[in-house]
């Protein structure tokens, strides 16, 4: 059997997209933890263009960029498909994945800011969340339909990471009154066995984000 390896970082939602996909498809893999604050020679060799995780290795060949890796996994191990069969539905899945990734600065701005700036950033995040709630998820159980798919994995950071970031930043963005559908989706996502058994520890994540936030909001020394 060809070797499958994931090089990742425990706190990265991009890495979890990949490991969730592999677990959902029952693909065995070796996981190697990387300290992203002190990058190894191996990572720099495996991903010379971006020097980031996740890096996926299969049969000696390397692939970087989580969305590219997800498409590769889907094509290489077609069981338990993560994309619909209908071409338009597949396009919508890719669209929402891209939306989540492209709007990263808008979603996370509140985490990196304080005071007035944070209030403004939190509003921007909520506008993006509203689009996800009303146009992306609508009345579906999962973003791609009745069962978990690529979009759900790509937006998985909403389920675990956002709460920890809100806690560290002292502001709630995804409140249940404004976003009942997204909250229902998070509950459904967390009940999927693969997700339930594989997610970062919330306490550890909160501590990590508190530390990260201190770095972002530290006043510049003159």
């Amino acid at each position, binding site marked *: 059997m060809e070797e499958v390896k994931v090089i990742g970082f425990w706190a990265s939602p991009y890495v979890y997209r990949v490991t969730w996909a592999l677990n959902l498809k029952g693909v065995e893999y070796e996981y190697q933890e990387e300290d992203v604050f002190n990058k190894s020679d191996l990572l720099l060799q495996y991903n*010379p*263009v971006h020097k980031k995780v996740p890096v996926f290795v*299969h049969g000696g*060949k390397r*692939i*970087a*960029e989580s*969305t*590219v*890796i997800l*498409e*590769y996994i889907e*094509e*290489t191990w077609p069981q338990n498909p993560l994309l619909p069969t209908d*071409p*338009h539905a*597949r*396009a*919508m899945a*890719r*669209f929402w994945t*891209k*939306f989540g990734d492209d709007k990263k600065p808008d979603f996370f701005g509140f985490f990196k800011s304080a005071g007035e700036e944070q209030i403004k950033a939190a509003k921007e995040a909520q506008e993006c969340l509203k*689009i996800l709630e009303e*146009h992306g998820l609508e009345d579906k159980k999962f973003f791609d339909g009745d069962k978990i798919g690529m979009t759900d994995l790509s937006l998985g950071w909403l389920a675990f990471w956002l709460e920890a970031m809100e806690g560290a930043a002292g502001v709630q963005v995804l409140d249940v009154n404004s976003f009942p559908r997204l909250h229902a989706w998070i509950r459904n996502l967390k009940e999927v066995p693969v997700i339930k058994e594989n997610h970062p520890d919330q306490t550890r994540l909160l501590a990590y984000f508190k530390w990260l936030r201190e770095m972002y909001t530290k006043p510049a020394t003159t």
Partner: protein
Amino acid sequence: MEEVKLFGAWPSPYGYRVIWALELKGVKYEYIEEDLSNKSDLLLQYNPIHKKIPVLVHNGKPISESHVILEYIEETWPGNPLLPSLEDPHGRASARFWTKFIDDKALPFAMLLMTDGEELEKAAKEVREILKILEEQGLGEKDFFGGNEIGLADLAMGLIASSFGVIEELAGVKVLNGDEFPGLCNWVKKFKENPAIKKNLPDPDQMFVYYKQKREMLINSRAALSYK
């Protein structure tokens, strides 16, 4: 017969990617030019989230985001494939990687158009670094990013062949030169020689007028903002 419509706005490279894909596959389509300063109700209806072009409408169903559209076109009209076959998933991953790479690096290219002075120098340096990565790691010894034939990644890189030269001229910089980037220069030549591409390239003189006006407007508005 299937109805295919494409909403674009000349000379958007994102619109051109989709035009090239449809032309390479011989798909008949109706092209609708959008005035982005006065967006049509139809565009706002078909792309309510981003309100941007390109939008492809196939049998009444809209798809937006150029990369998503390209994947859709590839899956719906498999003739003259733009991705390696499913037997080469790594080749397919490579095409997607480089498509994403150039999309993520859009800002430095835009800054070449929008800036002058020190900021322009900085943008030119960043673009040079991007081109270096494309030359050495993207293209390597190949004629095209897709290998022997034009593929998805080549269409994504298309702006380097179509509008980049005009933007360099307006900015007064020469980044893409044959000495530093022989592979890329060869790629530009071969890309533009492809019959489907050749018939569908924005006219350089018209582009010069368009981008000159745009550059003046952008530089002035950035200067006005800095005096606020």
